[in-house]
């Protein structure tokens, strides 16, 4: 929907547009290209020159990878010259130019070449650590640039150098799309691999790749304990053999090894250790009753050991239980170990009170100097007759119809 006022305004606008167009001269009739190279070296001063038949001074549009600008001419003796700013001459790539003079365009382009020199080598290496054995690799990407930070032309030669133990090798690569890359596969041995590159008389800095041992292979375990008695006190130490990968490289320090202990009651106990020089150690306290343990170690999800079996023999054969007069205090002990010595402190003793078959209360205490004393007030244990059960080190004693008052 329109308004008539706008129509008038539009008509005026319309007419002015047409008038302007009809005045525009054809550029090509008035300009003659004298000097505008097709190829140019980055950073060199660049002037575009045209012979002009008129006094007009049209502007020049110029555009490269990073942007565009407008350049004013210098007119002298019918020669129009445009100085291209450094910001545009120093970057490689296509530089488009167009003389701005209305309807018709006089345009062209100049390919700016990077210099054939290396001012800087940027290298990107990753991953920084790889696994020994020849299937893993790291990639070195090399981007040599000239002094204006332009990537060099395709097929520029880049040499890579690699050092590992006694060995040094070199390879030749050629850049494409501004860069060159090489995959370095891991050697069989673990260690540190040094990489560097060079391009047109410039050497890069040195890069280090850590070659880690590959995944561990099967290993064996052994046990070491002060005695084979189930005293609930001494400690059994488990130890792996030196764990290696398939190329006999010792696994990295800190490899986590988990030991699974399966008891004869099918309970599983776990202990673990980290390797140092390929050996992991882990410890477990002795059981307090006779037990058979089956032990196997794992580097979780990767490798496993053989299975070993341990027997712990019973140490406590018998123990005394003494009741006080009102049976509210019960003294258990002395509990003696395999040589008749007092059992070390800390052995669990459980006591349970039953009325008929219903458990009324229970208590657990640990031995001190071979003895344990249970004591109950009458608000916990009402006066009555009870069956009392005392259990320690796998031995159970039962006392029936004990009158507590």
């Amino acid at each position, binding site marked *: *929907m329109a308004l008539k006022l*706008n*129509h008038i305004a*539009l008509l005026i606008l319309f007419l002015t547009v047409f008038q302007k167009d009809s005045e525009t001269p054809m550029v090509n009739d008035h300009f003659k290209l004298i000097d505008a190279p097709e190829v140019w070296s980055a950073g060199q001063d660049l002037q575009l020159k045209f012979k002009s038949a008129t006094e007009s001074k049209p502007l020049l549009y110029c555009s490269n990878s990073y*942007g565009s600008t407008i350049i004013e001419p210098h007119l002298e003796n019918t020669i129009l010259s445009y100085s291209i700013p450094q910001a545009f001459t120093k970057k490689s790539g*296509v530089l488009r130019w*167009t003389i701005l003079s209305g309807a018709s365009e006089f345009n062209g382009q100049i390919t700016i070449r990077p210099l054939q020199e290396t001012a800087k080598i940027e290298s990107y290496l*990753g991953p920084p650590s790889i696994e020994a054995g020849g299937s893993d690799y790291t990639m070195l990407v090399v981007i040599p640039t000239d002094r204006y930070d332009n*990537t060099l032309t395709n097929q520029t030669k880049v040499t890579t150098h690699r050092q590992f133990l006694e060995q040094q090798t070199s390879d030749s690569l050629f850049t494409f*799309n501004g860069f060159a890359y090489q995959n370095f596969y891991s050697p069989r041995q673990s260690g540190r691999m040094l990489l560097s590159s060079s391009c047109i008389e410039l050497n890069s800095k040195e890069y280090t790749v850590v070659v880690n041992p590959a995944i561990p292979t099967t290993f064996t375990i052994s046990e070491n304990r002060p005695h084979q008695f189930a005293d609930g006190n001494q400690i059994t130490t488990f130890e792996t053999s030196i764990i290696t990968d398939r190329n006999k490289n010792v696994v990295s320090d800190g490899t986590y090894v988990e030991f699974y202990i399966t008891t004869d009651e099918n309970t599983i106990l776990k202990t673990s250790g980290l390797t140092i020089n390929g050996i992991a150690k882990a410890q477990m306290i002795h059981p307090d009753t006779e037990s058979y343990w089956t032990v196997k170690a794992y580097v979780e999800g990767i490798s496993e050991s053989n299975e070993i079996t341990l027997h712990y023999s019973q140490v406590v054969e018998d123990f005394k239980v003494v009741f006080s007069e009102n049976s509210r205090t019960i003294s258990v002990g002395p509990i003696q170990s395999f040589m008749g010595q007092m059992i070390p402190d800390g052995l669990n003793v459980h006591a349970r009170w039953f009325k008929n078959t219903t458990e009324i209360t229970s208590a657990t205490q640990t031995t001190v100097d071979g003895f344990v004393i249970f004591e109950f007030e009458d608000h916990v244990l009402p006066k009555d007759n009870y069956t009392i059960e005392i259990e320690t080190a796998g031995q159970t004693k039962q006392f029936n119809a004990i009158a507590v008052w």
Partner: protein
Amino acid sequence: MIIGFIIYGISAIFGYLNTGADRSSMLHTEIQKIEQYTPKISWSKLPNEGRPIDDENRKAIENDYLDAWYVMHLSNKTHSTAGIEDYFTDSARQNLYDIIELNATKNIVIESTTLEHHPKLEFFSEDGQLAVITDHDVIEYKRLFKQDEFLQEFKEQSTYKVILLLEDGFWRIRHFTKIQSKPFKPAENQVELVHKNIKGINYYPKDTPWDMFGESFSEDILRSDFNLLKDAGLNTIRVFIQYDDFGNAKVNNKKLDKLKTTLDLASEADLKVMITLFDFYGNYEVLDWTLNMKHAETLVNAVKNHEALWGWDIKNEPNLDFESRGQSNVLSWLENMINHVKYLDPNHPVTIGWSNIESASLLSDNVDVITFHFYEDLSTLEDQLKTLVSQTEDKPLLLGEFGMSSYNGFWKPFGTSDEDQAEYHKTAQQLISKLNLNAMSWTLYDFDQIPKEVVGRLPWRKHLQKHFGFLDKEGQPKAAFQYISSELD
């Protein structure tokens, strides 16, 4: 009391100063995706050297790479370096700073955008920290200004080699080299007008003018209106898509479904539909282009194969924006949008609904049909047309809007009556037959409400606009209805 407020104020300031950067802003994990730049981007499917890439990484590269272009466009326009640090490495950003400084000192402003990208991933490093892409046939658009004076516009087709590095979560451009560039000329494609002899009407439902696809959208109303139009001897309707109402760059699917339903219903009534795009849009800024194009792409692709589609009216009366937005801005926008819509749908005609005959010769080479609106004295139509025809050779013409309000009341005491309106349409139909014109009248109904975007807030304009219908607010035919088409004579 006052002391309490002061203490509260001081503690609030203190509290604010004590807030450090939160973790999400340090790690760039915040969701900040506002569609502000949506050039068409299509990746080559060819495999790359180095590590195979997954979609997530490719998407991350794409986002940051396009953002890099966006900050370049912004810096071209504003000479601001904002954002450049995020998308260019230390050495690369220096190149941009040099050019920004050069242009800032000489007051050179370049409004630029890119319309298409066709990147191919050449290389992706083993550790996922370096990527090399060749971005083929980037379509760049630039408008040059010096000392605030518009100089010239350019469309260029260029190819870039780009080396990107992943640094603290951003893919930054390390090397950026234009390796090919040439002026870009979009392919010319003229569409033959298949559906000639347009007898049409500009259509809005009675109760929802300028909100046709809103909550009150009703199939029943449309079906009955379309049948009425068909019975009245009409064969085409013109409908309007309001740009923001349809969700601008992210087109609202619900609205799109309603548009499709409208086309289905039109098809049932043997009506063709001319779709006017970008209604109520008036920005035309170069940095808006990609959003507009995305909008058009979704819409055009959704209905371009529908049998009821007559063609595309790019914009309603864009010449009214010349004064406020600049003629050259508007024309460049239109030319680009015509090319874009023709590229998306090469089979349907494209036109622009100029508000008067004087403007109608603009871009006449680009459109398939020249559409103009005419609310002037009908007796001058024939003469004005002669001028237009002489300027535009054989292009088909369409009188896209004409009509007369029957408002005669407080705001316009000496306005026209129902009878005047009938007389006007009678004359119009005779003229249309005589000149053998394609024509679409304004409009089917009188309306109760006119949004301010249509004719502004002034009541005398609004009231006039409410009474252009062939049917009154109750849906009863007015005297003019017998002249809704030449068929009913």
